[in-house]
């Protein structure tokens, strides 16, 4: 296995752990404060954590078929996570926008849908989360390059675009998770 793959896999696994920890903290507070919205967000973050785990599994799979299965699974889980976080967002911040997502599922490739959902989240969110989701949206569109760029005669640049998209997605998702987990843990250590 290439050292770069191992390194990326480690970053992705750290991101998975961070998302799952964030989800656990939110779920605990949600149960004490009776907040279904926070519980929904906790579920969304745990699914994003699982998406990271599937992503790592796709790097470590030696069989191309298994790697493909985990790759598609990671995008599907990311999408589900985005929808849950979007569903828990305040209506005043555009939370109701998740209602349009099923209509997008039909005609679009899975990464385009994930990219659109991440884009909507970037619109709804603020601060570092906004930047994070914006980068995630771009990364999903890069991963959809074979479909989007089919008519542009990109040739040998296509695999490179997909690779860049995957690296950007993996690193930005982990960075987002680690940033907010650090915030929560830093506060608890005070």
């Amino acid at each position, binding site marked *: 296995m290439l050292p770069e793959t191992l390194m990326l896999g480690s970053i992705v696994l750290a991101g998975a752990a961070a998302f799952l920890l964030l989800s656990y903290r939110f779920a605990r507070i949600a149960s*004490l*404060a009776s*907040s279904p919205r926070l519980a929904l967000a906790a579920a969304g973050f745990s699914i994003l954590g699982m998406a990271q785990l599937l992503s790592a599994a796709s790097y470590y799979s030696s069989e191309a078929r298994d790697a493909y299965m985990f790759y598609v699974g990671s995008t599907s889980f990311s999408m589900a996570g985005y929808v849950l976080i979007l569903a828990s967002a305040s209506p005043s*911040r555009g939370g109701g926008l998740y209602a349009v997502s099923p209509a997008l599922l039909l005609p679009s490739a899975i990464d385009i849908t994930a990219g659109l959902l991440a884009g909507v*989240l970037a619109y*709804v969110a*603020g601060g570092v989360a906004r930047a994070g989701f914006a980068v995630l949206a771009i990364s999903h569109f890069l991963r959809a390059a074979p479909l989007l760029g089919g008519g542009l005669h990109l040739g040998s640049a296509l695999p490179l675009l997909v690779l860049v998209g995957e690296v950007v997605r993996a690193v930005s998702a982990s960075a987002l998770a680690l940033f907010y987990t650090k915030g*929560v843990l830093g506060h608890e250590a005070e």
Partner: protein
Amino acid sequence: MRRSRAAIIYEVLEVVVRNGGEVNPTQLSLEANLAYDRMMRLLEKLEERGLVEVVAEEGRKWVRITRKGRELYHHLRHVRRILSDFGISL
């Protein structure tokens, strides 16, 4: 806009903390902008969860925040800022 239950819990805990950890129910009701009956029902739930205690001293009732309640208040205050980045309010 209608406040969620979690937002009301946060505001009730905030009022108690702001008043030094102890407040009488009437003042709490006024400052938390909550009808007295509704607030007393909420306080029962919060007491069951060990977040506050309602004590009677010299014929007067007092609402005291517990250590667990104070912890939840600080967690909620911090998490609110993080959630706001994701477009989520309590």
